[in-house]
């Protein structure tokens, strides 16, 4: 059985959907973070697979950018989460709505 590009794309789609659903339904900030990482990596899989399908290095190059940005985002995001947790523990994402109109 040959594993074609379609399989990889399907895997990426499934992972992305899981990430999206998790982001929308969970309220724990840490879980939401993990879901975002899941979505990013799903996108990374599509980059790599299409890159290999087209025999183009550009796909892998894009992945590095995504990784760097994701790392930076995690640094800022986790710092925020830690800072909020220190002030009010057991907080979930829906409690943080003081900027609501």
């Amino acid at each position: 059985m040959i594993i074609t590009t379609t399989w990889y794309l399907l895997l990426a789609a499934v992972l992305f959907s899981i990430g999206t659903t998790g982001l929308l339904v969970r309220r724990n900030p840490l879980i939401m973070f993990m879901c975002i990482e899941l979505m990013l990596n799903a996108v990374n899989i599509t980059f790599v697979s299409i890159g290999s399908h087209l025999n183009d290095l550009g796909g892998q190059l894009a992945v590095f950018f995504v990784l760097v940005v994701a790392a930076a985002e995690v640094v800022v995001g986790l710092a925020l989460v830690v800072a909020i947790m220190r002030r009010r523990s057991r907080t979930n994402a829906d409690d943080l709505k003081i900027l609501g109109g």
Partner: protein
Amino acid sequence: MIDLVWLIPAFPLLGFLTLICLGRSVREPISGWLATTAMAGSFLSTLIVFIGMLLEENENRQTVFTLFDWIPAGDFKVEIGFLADPLSITMCLFITGVGTLIHLYSIGYMHGDLDFNRFFTYLNLFAFSMLMLVLGDNLLLTFLGWEGVGACSYLLISFWFSDPANATAGKKAFITNRVGDWGFMVAMFLIFFNFGSLQYLEIFDILGSNQIAETTTTFIVLMLFVGAVGKSAQFPLYLWLPDAMAGPTPVSALIHAATMVTSGVYLLIRVNPIMVEASAWSTGLIAWVGAGTALFAASIAVAQTDIKKVLAYSTVSQLGYMILAVGCGAYTAAIFHMITHAFFKALLFLGAGSVIHGMDGEQDLRRYGGLRSLMPITAGTFIIGWLAIAGVPPFSGFWSKDEILAFAWDKNPLLWLVGIITALLTAFYMTRQVILTFFGKPRYLDAGDDAGDDAGDDAGDDAGDDAGDVQPHESPWTMTLPLIALAFLSVVGGLIQLPFSSSTKRLEHWLEPATFHNETHLHLSSSTLWVLALLTLAAVAIGIGIGISTYLKEKIDRQIFEKPILNNAWHFDSTVSKVMGGPGFKAFEAVAKFDKRVIDGAVDGTGQIVKKTAFILRRSQNGLVRTYALGVGIGAVGLLIWFLSRTTI
């Protein structure tokens, strides 16, 4: 030497700034001398520019000096620049010359006033604004000066503002002038719209090369005339000038007789290339308004009892002559009369001020009498002023008035008739004033039995009931010296323009660069001119004769002339006040309500709509991160569907 023109307004500005910085830290005469020195410096620089201009050829006498860009806004560009030409320099000469004399006079007149410094600060600011008005090379700069002199006029009329009547008079002047300013502004908008420039010389160039519709120029001229009617106190906006006499007398002399009120005439003459392009009925209207005002105001002056009110109505009347001349296209005659009028009317006002000063503030003609021997210099100079304004040859007033009347005859004999009746009335009321003041029995000793109660008049601010104690005295030299100088000028002022031959018409040749040969030419034979002059003389003689037999010899009952209706100015002022206080006020309130409900309502309504919509929409911003994520997700899915639907697979 012409390029020193910026010095002319710089001196009064410097004086104003110095005085305002010094405030009350200088003592009384010093500030007055500072202001006078500033004016004298301005006069000297005008003289230098004048001599420099005389040395130039006739065609090089019109130059523009630009200091800097004032408003550079796209196509709209206004510079601070001075237009030095014979017209503006002539105006500057008598503004600074008469101005210096009046400053000097004020040192004596304002002696002992608590606000001595403030007075001179305003006077210098006035001189600066007036010079900017005259020298400005574009309409906007002229307008700046126009508003500046208006503001100074307001400040100086209500100089003694602790008396509510004075403050009201100031407000009245300011608000009445606003009507005229509206006309000026509309004219400016029209000029910029049609010519694309506000600079006089550029406008005249465009006027020469492009065809501008006659209706446009007519409308511009009429709107400028509305401005002139306001500032030069013509019917129906003259109302403010008699009230303006509430100010100190030097102010009446400088601002409300010699200089500021002539600026409307100046403006019309300055734009004479537009005037000649306008249709004939508009200039006819100008001439008729001038003639009508001259007669109307002269008839009122006959029955006034306040020495300054007589002169105020006389000023309105003389300004009417100038406007009449402008309407006839006789620009030189208008300027000529403006100059001689500046001399003799300033002289008369300063003389009146000297009398008031000597009588401890008494302004009622009926309480004077026999002051001739007690104030010899004032009386002598005042009599010269009387002869000049009445039009007795060889005094200056005769020449200028005669020239205007000749032009009036040439345009329309009816205009001339109105003019000559005015000349008769002028001779009469001035004779009355001189006799009541300087001749006859002294009446100031018998305290107000007959004065103040007849005709319910307006001598409201007379110094009162202790008239029995006054000791009339001659004024100090600072006051008499300007009187003598002005009297001299009133005698010889006519020399600048004598009608005998082409070479004696010096003013006409001198003004040629500014009038661009737009002047009307007289089509009268010299014999007609002689007859007209003799008729004028006859009218003057009759006027003086009636005056003498009524007031000196008392052969004619004076009640024949002093009708209450004339004393009340034909009830015009009170009617206007009544209309404006009653129905007019209500009409304007309705307009204000419309403004508040409809115009402001539209503006406020827009705000309310935005506010209410925002109140509903802001609920979408609920602060929940997951909702936003859902929004982003839906958006992404939407975009995806849109792209996919467009792609053919």
